[in-house]
């Protein structure tokens, strides 16, 4: 039996002896399983056990990261040698010596206990659920002669166990179960063409989450909606409209246009050659980027959330973070490296998705804080507009300023009432243009899950993107063309 604690101690001692001024070692085991259903047929079932140790060291101001799954004392000491050697070799090319901010570090154990363990759910029960879900979508689209020609359903569950210790006293162990459900659908109608929809659910708890999602009903609605939009959808209006954006759209906007540009590592250029930088600078705190009713939060501590954690990968205690407060930039997402470089404190944003990935600044659960308007109040005050409930396509530039979200389920609004379905309305606006057009925020906060990509090598981090329904005044749906 491998004594993990002893290996972790060996790593820190070895790094110190080899001249590291800081070191941090993380044991991480991600153990899980999943099944994919393709067009109603089980495509493949899979299990994964990804277990190993990741180590970060600072040597002569140069940061080194190494990882291995050779969990022996010799394997770990080789890892230390390699990480220290590579950091030393690069130190002449380091322009700004790396250091870590001083923080009150955690010494704690965190465990999320599932009510129903995945292991206690029979595999054939999972398959039967997926088949029922698939069938519900297909049948719901049929009455309008829409064939769901492409259906991909994936249900995955995993438990992540971590033990992290740092050379300056951090020591945190955590066990968190997560499950997620991803679906992708394409509907086709012989005369009206095709439409695509994908979305994800995810939570940090046991099988009880899957039961609570009521996936049969979710996919029944999706099938019916695709059919309705395809058959009855009219082109979006070209004139100026008021826009009701659903919580799913708002959650993604907050993630892409507030969370990402407020990651301090992006702002400081660390992702410049890959995911890019930010339209903000490190001096942008207080800058007005939205109307006064816009408050955007990222909170890792939300119970059962997909991005849940109580301590980050640097052993800093997590807390709720106000990214935008009353329309102004309030704080950035920081780790100990960016906090030290900018003279502030970490707000526990360092995350790594597996043992072989370095901790970098990530969001957890990002959302617009709900206001006090009911849906009826929001829509009742719109004479001419569009309600975009959810989306099918999106992208944003690498400074996080020029964004696009194409709606899937959308309806016209005339004199305060929902009208006919609208097909492919595109929100193509700047970040500031979008947030400044918000004039009212609903009270109906809801959550969606996503896997956020960042880093090099790429790391897909579990997050929630959440929001209430939000009203924007006087916008044009696009994008703008000549």
């Amino acid at each position: 039996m491998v004594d993990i604690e002893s290996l972790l101690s060996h790593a820190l001692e070895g790094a110190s002896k080899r001249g590291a001024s800081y070191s941090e070692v993380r044991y991480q085991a991600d153990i899980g399983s999943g099944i994919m259903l393709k067009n109603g047929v089980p495509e493949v079932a899979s299990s994964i056990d990804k277990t190993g140790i990741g180590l970060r060291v600072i040597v002569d101001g140069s940061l080194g990261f190494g990882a291995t799954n050779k969990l022996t004392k010799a394997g770990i000491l080789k890892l230390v040698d390699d990480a220290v050697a590579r950091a030393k070799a690069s130190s002449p090319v380091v322009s700004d010596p790396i250091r870590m901010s001083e923080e009150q570090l955690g010494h704690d154990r965190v465990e999320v206990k599932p009510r129903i363990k995945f292991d206690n759910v029979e595999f054939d029960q999972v398959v039967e659920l997926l088949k029922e879900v698939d069938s519900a979508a297909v049948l719901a689209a049929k009455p309008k002669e829409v064939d769901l020609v492409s259906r991909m359903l994936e249900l995955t569950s995993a438990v992540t166990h971590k033990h992290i210790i740092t050379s300056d006293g951090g020591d945190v162990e955590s066990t968190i179960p997560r499950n997620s459900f991803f679906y992708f659908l394409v509907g086709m109608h012989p005369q009206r063409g095709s439409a695509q929809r994908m979305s994800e659910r995810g939570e940090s708890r046991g099988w009880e989450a899957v039961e609570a999602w009521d996936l049969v009903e979710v996919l029944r609605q999706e099938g019916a909606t695709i059919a309705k939009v395809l058959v009855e959808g009219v082109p979006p209006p070209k004139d100026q409209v008021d826009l009701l954006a659903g919580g799913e759209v708002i959650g993604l906007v907050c993630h892409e246009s507030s969370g990402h540009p407020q990651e301090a590592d992006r702002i400081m250029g660390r992702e410049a050659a890959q995911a890019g930088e930010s339209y903000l600078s490190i001096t942008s705190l207080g800058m007005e980027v939205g109307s006064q009713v816009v408050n955007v939060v990222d909170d890792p501590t939300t119970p059962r959330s997909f991005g849940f954690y109580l301590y980050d990968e640097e052993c800093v205690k997590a807390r709720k973070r106000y990214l935008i407060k009353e329309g102004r930039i309030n704080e950035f997402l920081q780790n100990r490296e960016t906090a030290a470089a900018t003279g502030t404190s970490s707000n526990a944003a360092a995350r790594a998705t597996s043992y072989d990935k370095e901790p970098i600044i990530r969001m957890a659960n990002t959302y617009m804080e709900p206001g006090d308007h009911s849906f009826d109040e929001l829509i009742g005050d719109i004479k001419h507009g569009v309600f975009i409930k959810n989306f099918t396509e999106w992208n944003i530039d690498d400074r996080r300023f020029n964004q696009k979200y194409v709606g899937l389920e959308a309806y016209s609004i005339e004199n305060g009432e929902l009208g006919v379905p609208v097909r492919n309305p595109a929100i193509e606006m700047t970040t500031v243009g979008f947030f400044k057009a918000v004039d009212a925020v609903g009270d109906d906060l809801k959550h969606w899950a996503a896997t956020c990509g960042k880093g090099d090598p790429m790391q897909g981090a579990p997050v929630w993107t959440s929001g209430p329904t939000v009203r924007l005044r006087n916008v044009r749906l696009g994008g703008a063309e000549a």
Partner: protein
Amino acid sequence: MKAEDIVEFAVKKAKSAGATDAVSQVRETDWAMIRFTNNGVTVSKVLKDTSVEIFLFVKEKRAGSSVSNLSEKAIEKAVLDAAKMARMSPAGGTYAPLPKGRFRYNKKLLRIGKAAGKIERLPGLVKESIDSAKATGASRVAGSLVAETRRVVQRSSTGIKGSYKTTSYNLNVRAFADGECTGQFAIIANDIDEVNGGEIGRVAGDIAKRALHPEQAQPGTYDVVLGPMTTADIIEEMAGASSAFYVDAGMSFFTDKLGAALAPSHLCLVDDPTDPSNPGACPFDDEGVPTQANRILSSGKLETYLHNSTTAAKMKTRTTANAGLVIPKPFSLQVSAGTGTIEDLVSKVDDGLYVTNNWYLRYQNMRSGDFSTILRDGLFRVKGGQIVGPVRGLRLTDNLVKMLGNVEATSSKRYWIKWWEVDTPVLAPAMLVRGVRFTKPTI
């Protein structure tokens, strides 16, 4: 256990657990990366890792396990988990047994690239690219350099037995003349001597410098010259859409288009992992079948989908040796070269754009090919066959099938591109495409 012992052990355990067929693969990775930003190194990474993949069939029911714990006990558990999942799965679709070995593999593909003693050169190569980009006009330079050696050992219950080792080097440089005026270039090669840090830095720096003082672009429909970075991204999307898995799933804009003339006759797209000088080259696929060169687009016609044994059986054809055990995949893509330079392509554009890079390509509809992608780095207005100045702020919003049909010419010079947005190495030229639609934000 040694890799050879692990795969033997896993296959044997799978058979005794009731598997009809089983294949196991061990991947030993020795990887180093230097990332740099603001003219200096931000982190140096190393990874020494061994992973074990087991894939088995119980008749037509399939399951796979991946495990990084190399103990006998852990591997046995992974095998038993997979066997249990397969047994309990309801009957799936088409069953195709794993191909029967042994095969003879091309000996030139068993050892690809040069590794020994090269890792010490990485910091110097990084410095060279930074200095070169700065000398060309950049104020800030960022990027990454990766050296990767991977050894693959594979066995199957059907007699497949093989191993190979590959090494590659991947340099990506982004130069900033100021915050929004940037240039980027990337290259992958199997020999570090073919990675010219100074040249990559110079290209990125030159684009950044020429991108200074951009004007806001107007949306509309333009003729466009796509640089090799954007060609690579779009071609990788097309190769992905040719995977029979996505075609069968109805998730591909190439569904029902086999044999159709989709592009002008001068355009070919080949997946060729059989030349050891090609990045991505390998002797066999994940089913152990010897790789082959596959012409996805031949003289503009969609000639083949990419298959493994299962998708081939379902479509009543033969595998193209592109397994992925679940999803067939390309290994090493090449777009046919034309006759002129990028400047020659630009000279054919009366009113258009020259796009040097893009990112964040997403589909409004994978089935139809409707998509959009953000243009990043140098974007230039072309009038009367000449670049007249930099512009910015556009999104390419169009349809990939339509764009493929409108490819008028490709450049003679091609580059092996791989970077954050392009996973599969692509030998990409610049490409002239007529009538491409661009949009921009409304507020």
